[in-house]
């Protein structure tokens, strides 16, 4: 864990900051930390050494020889990209011999270079152009023909032009060293050296876009934004990615109000400049033609496009009417976890203060609330670890998370740690094999606890039980230890094995590694947080880390992964039925309804009006029930980017601005609050959510017919933010060891710990289906991104090749999934993947609604989270004659 008081955001323990050495470059004296590479250190003197193969994100490779410099007392020129600075070094970067060698390298590189800069998308940000201008002589002595490679198709999103390649291998090294995907390699030799896939075909990888960004020239460029703009035409805006909880900084680039490219700055942000496919190629949703653009009213079966003023008046009027008739409790509101902190704050203020109803909730109710409230319950905070801790930890325990799919950038931190020698323990039902060009954490794990599908709960018991033999950390409160000890004593390892399929030994080994670590970080994913018993299982995991002493101290902690970008922030800003801003528990009277209870209340006719901001319950909850409930409402206000199943029922539909069109603060799953900036004006006639809430509040409060713009309460999101911060406790972004141990001690006093083994399910020809996130998509907005659709644009069933073989199924063949519970069935094509657990199926959740209907829904007793992502299904082949063309 990082404590704000103790200098946090540096890279790991303070290892390089120690000694400073003084050296001279071009007669300028500078000092730099010992061991720093010369190419970096000279920047302090304002000197730039030309380079191609060096990149700060990669290990030095010294293959391009562009960075040669003269160092006194060294016989030959040295590569600055591999040379650490030393005390008293005297470096020349502009001496005759250096210039001669630079000219030589440039002449050699340009000897084969097509110099088609006018057509090349890299033109304007090309290192070959820049260094060529500075370091080459005019003219070339080469008379020979330049090499020409035949043009290859390199996949739907990456454009390869090998004529421009300078063979620096940065792309290959990025793919290996950072992503761990190893999709790229270099072939042939000499002049003919080229980059490609090992199978010499189309690129098939995670499509993080890293190779495109890291290529110093235009050999690899984005096919998605190909030839659209020149770099100097683009306006760049820093913001925070809106697709998942990793909180990556990215730069939106565009001309006027059209975002045409995304990039990132090396080393910047939580992601240190790395991005995933969704961040890099997912910008297409912003300017999509289907975006809602005008407010709409649906009255008496007619749809009217109206002005904002009209829509605001109507919404305020209708809300007031309902409050007058049925009391404020007849109104409920749900906000999406993609909204900013400002918006969540303002929304709960609108509901609680202006309308006066306690019924506020957010879509964190679909699962993430489990993690937040369980952490808050035990530790009094949910900020327990940062990416820095992951990178410097010596043991990582990843429970129920497929990080390469759901949170790729947090996954990169884990990969980095493993490369640095950390031991990785993974616990989930996936197989430890990996598909060739996709990374998969269990394949890197020192210990992969390959449990049976859906038995996380029992496996956690196994880990806790095994911990007791290893010895419990002295910091764990006695009372808690004794209580847990008593509970696990009655459960035997034999029973645990019967359920989870894992032996006593594997639990012991894992528990020993975890508890014996100097700094261990536990990462908890959707397999726990968003699956049956999520709240209790999260508590059990927290207790595990308390018992092992791996929480509440520097460098160790727990990180719950969020699949939405601001799940943490929206709940913390108070948009949750149980919390006021700052995660203060509230006791509202009457009891505040959660999302699901609001739907029930609407069905019963108790709730008359519902305000849904970006929430789409029809997609996430049983459709019939929700549809009935929605049609029972007197007033349904929806506020969305795109038309959805839910907002088709809306009486008032308001078009909202996307993250690119507003500024605001977002809190990622580490609890780091970051500001995103506005890149473009709202598309169509949309308005930012905060502005809508602000205007609507005024309309409701004031009995006036003045046009809305005269009444705007908040002039900017910053103004809202100032107020929202005031509503938070003083130290809301900080935590201290003392406060945490105080909370843990208090928790130990009142904790009622339940341990229950699941009953093993007999298989009898039924397979387990898990709905989840695909690496190319997030939620449903990403479906509007052209780039991501080129990677995956339809639903499919992922199955292990062995299972497929046993069922005589081929890749792409259609199968029928049917539920013996509901009798419903769905036909889908299959996709093979080695990492899929045997006997289990996976369907990406982003597309159709029908698969959801196959799965049973259970509701958490405490946190009221609806679990509907897992369940048994029957899989059968679709007879060839009835095959429908896909």
């Amino acid at each position, binding site marked *: 864990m990082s404590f704000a008081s103790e200098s946090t955001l540096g890279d790991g323990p303070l290892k390089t900051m120690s000694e400073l050495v003084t050296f001279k470059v071009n007669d300028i004296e500078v000092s730099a930390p010992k061991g720093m590479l010369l190419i970096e250190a000279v920047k302090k003197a304002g000197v730039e050494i030309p380079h191609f193969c060096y990149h700060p994100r990669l290990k030095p490779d010294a293959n391009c020889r562009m960075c040669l410099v003269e160092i006194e007392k060294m016989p030959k020129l040295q590569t600055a990209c591999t040379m650490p600075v030393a005390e008293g070094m005297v470096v020349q970067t502009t001496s005759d011999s250096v210039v001669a060698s630079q000219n030589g390298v440039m002449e050699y590189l340009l000897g084969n270079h097509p110099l088609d800069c006018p*057509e090349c998308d890299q033109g304007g940000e090309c290192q070959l152009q820049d260094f060529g201008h500075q370091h080459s002589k005019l003219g070339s002595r080469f008379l020979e023909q330049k090499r020409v490679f035949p*043009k290859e198709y390199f996949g*739907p999103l990456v454009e390869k032009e090998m004529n421009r390649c300078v063979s620096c291998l940065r792309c290959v090294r990025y793919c290996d060293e950072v992503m761990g995907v190893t999709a790229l390699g270099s072939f042939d030799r000499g002049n003919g050296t080229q980059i490609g896939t090992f*199978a*010499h075909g189309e690129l*098939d990888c995670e499509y993080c876009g890293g190779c495109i960004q890291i290529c110093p020239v235009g050999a690899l460029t984005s096919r998605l934004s190909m*030839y659209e703009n020149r770099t100097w035409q683009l306006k760049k805006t820093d913001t925070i990615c809106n697709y998942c909880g990793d909180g990556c900084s990215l730069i939106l680039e565009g001309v006027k109000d059209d975002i045409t490219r995304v990039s990132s700055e090396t080393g910047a942000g939580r992601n240190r400049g790395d991005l995933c496919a969704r961040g890099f190629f997912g910008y297409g949703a912003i300017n999509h033609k289907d975006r809602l653009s005008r407010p709409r009213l649906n009255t008496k079966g007619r749809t009217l496009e109206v002005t904002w003023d009209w829509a605001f008046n109507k919404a305020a009027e209708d809300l007031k009417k309902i409050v007058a008739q049925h009391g404020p409790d007849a109104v409920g509101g749900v906000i999406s976890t993609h909204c900013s902190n400002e918006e969540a704050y303002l929304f709960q203020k609108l509901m609680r203060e202006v309308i006066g109803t306690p019924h506020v909730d957010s879509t964190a109710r679909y699962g993430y609330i489990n993690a937040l409230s369980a952490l808050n319950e035990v530790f009094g905070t949910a900020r327990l670890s940062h990416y820095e801790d992951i990178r410097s930890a010596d043991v990582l325990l990843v429970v129920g998370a497929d990080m390469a799919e759901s949170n790729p950038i947090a996954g990169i931190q884990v990969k980095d740690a493993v490369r640095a020698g950390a031991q990785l323990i993974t616990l989930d039902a996936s197989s430890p094999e990996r598909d*060739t060009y996709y990374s998969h954490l269990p394949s890197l794990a020192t210990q992969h606890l390959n449990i049976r599908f859906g038995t996380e709960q029992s496996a956690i018991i196994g880990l806790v039980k095994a911990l007791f033999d290893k010895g419990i950390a002295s910091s764990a409160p006695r009372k808690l230890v004794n209580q847990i000890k008593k509970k696990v004593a009655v459960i035997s390892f034999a029973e645990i094995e019967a359920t989870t399929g894992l032996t006593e030994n594997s639990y012991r080994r894992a528990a020993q590694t975890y508890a014996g670590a100097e700094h261990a970080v536990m990462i908890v994913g959707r397999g726990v947080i968003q699956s049956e018993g999520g709240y209790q299982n999260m508590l059990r995991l927290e207790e595990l880390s308390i018992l092992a002493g791996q929480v509440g101290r520097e460098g160790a902690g727990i990180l719950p992964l969020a699949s939405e970008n601001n799940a943490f922030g929206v709940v913390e800003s108070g948009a949750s039925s149980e919390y006021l801003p700052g995660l203060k528990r509230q006791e509202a009277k009457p009891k505040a309804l959660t999302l699901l209870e609001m739907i029930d209340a609407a069905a019963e006719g108790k709730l008359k009006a519902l305000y849904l901001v970006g929430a789409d319950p029809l997609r996430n909850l049983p459709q019939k029930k929700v549809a009935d409930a929605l049609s029972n409402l007197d007033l349904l206000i929806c506020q969305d980017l795109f038309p959805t199943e839910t907002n088709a029922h809306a009486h008032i539909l308001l078009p909202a601005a996307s993250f690119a069109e507003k500024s605001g603060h977002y809190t990622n799953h580490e609890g780091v609050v970051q500001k995103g900036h506005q890149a473009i004006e709202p598309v169509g006639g949309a308005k930012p959510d905060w502005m809508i809430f602000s205007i609507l509040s005024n309309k409701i409060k004031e009995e006036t017919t003045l046009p809305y713009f005269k009444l705007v309460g908040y002039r900017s999101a910053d103004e809202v933010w100032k107020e929202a911060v005031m509503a938070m406790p003083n130290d809301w972004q900080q935590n201290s060891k003392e406060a945490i141990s105080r909370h843990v001690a208090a928790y130990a006093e009142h904790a009622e710990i339940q341990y229950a083994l699941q009953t093993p399910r007999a298989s009898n020809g039924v397979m387990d289906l898990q709905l989840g996130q695909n690496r190319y998509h997030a939620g449903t907005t990403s479906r509007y991104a052209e780039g991501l659709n080129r990677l995956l644009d*339809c639903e499919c069933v992922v199955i292990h090749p062995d299972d497929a073989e046993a069922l005589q199924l081929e890749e792409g063949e259609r199968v029928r999934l049917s539920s013996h519970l509901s009798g419903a069935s769905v036909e889908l094509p299959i996709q093979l993947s080695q990492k899929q657990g045997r006997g289990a199926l996976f369907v990406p959740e982003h597309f159709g609604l029908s698969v959801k209907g196959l799965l049973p829904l259970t509701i958490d007793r405490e946190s009221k989270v609806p679990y509907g992502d897992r369940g048994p299904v029957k899989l059968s082949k679709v007879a060839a004659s009835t095959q429908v063309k896909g």
Partner: protein
Amino acid sequence: MTGKELFKKAVFYEILQGLGLTFKHMLFGKTMTEQYPREKPSLPDGWRGAIVQLRYDDGSEKCVGCALCEAACPSHCITVESAEREDMPQKRYSKRYTLDMTRCVFCGFCVQACPVTALASSKEYELATTDKRELIMEMDDLLKLGDKYFPIREKRPQYTEDRFNFFKQNKASGFPVAHVPVVNVPIAKKGAA
């Protein structure tokens, strides 16, 4: 200041000198009035008139849509929207090229900036119109002007064509798309390198 200089200043000597030349031409020179528009001047080569677009000998436009002219233009009168050519994969072209002649100062910077000599300064100077919108010229207008003033065309370089053969074939039948069935492909080919 000497007395002579003072005298010259007092009688505006330089002005008298200049007027002397004027009167010389007025009284003894040949009449030079041009009967425009009946009579047209013969313009020197290198005259910087309206900017035009040129073609190669096969009639295709030279412009590759690099937007360098846009970047060079001091009066911001050029707008280039580039894209990949539909019929010729990997070829950049300007999907839309607009030159606002009302703002052009005929400096010729764009001509110098163009890396493929697609632009030229023509001898067109009769740009007066009753509708200013006509002066906001699109690619077609500029090419038409180019055809008028530059009938001799450069030969189109051919060397880049062959390497696109593979592409052309595939473009016709449609590129493979990394859809559902792709994931397993590398597994089958595992080890191949």
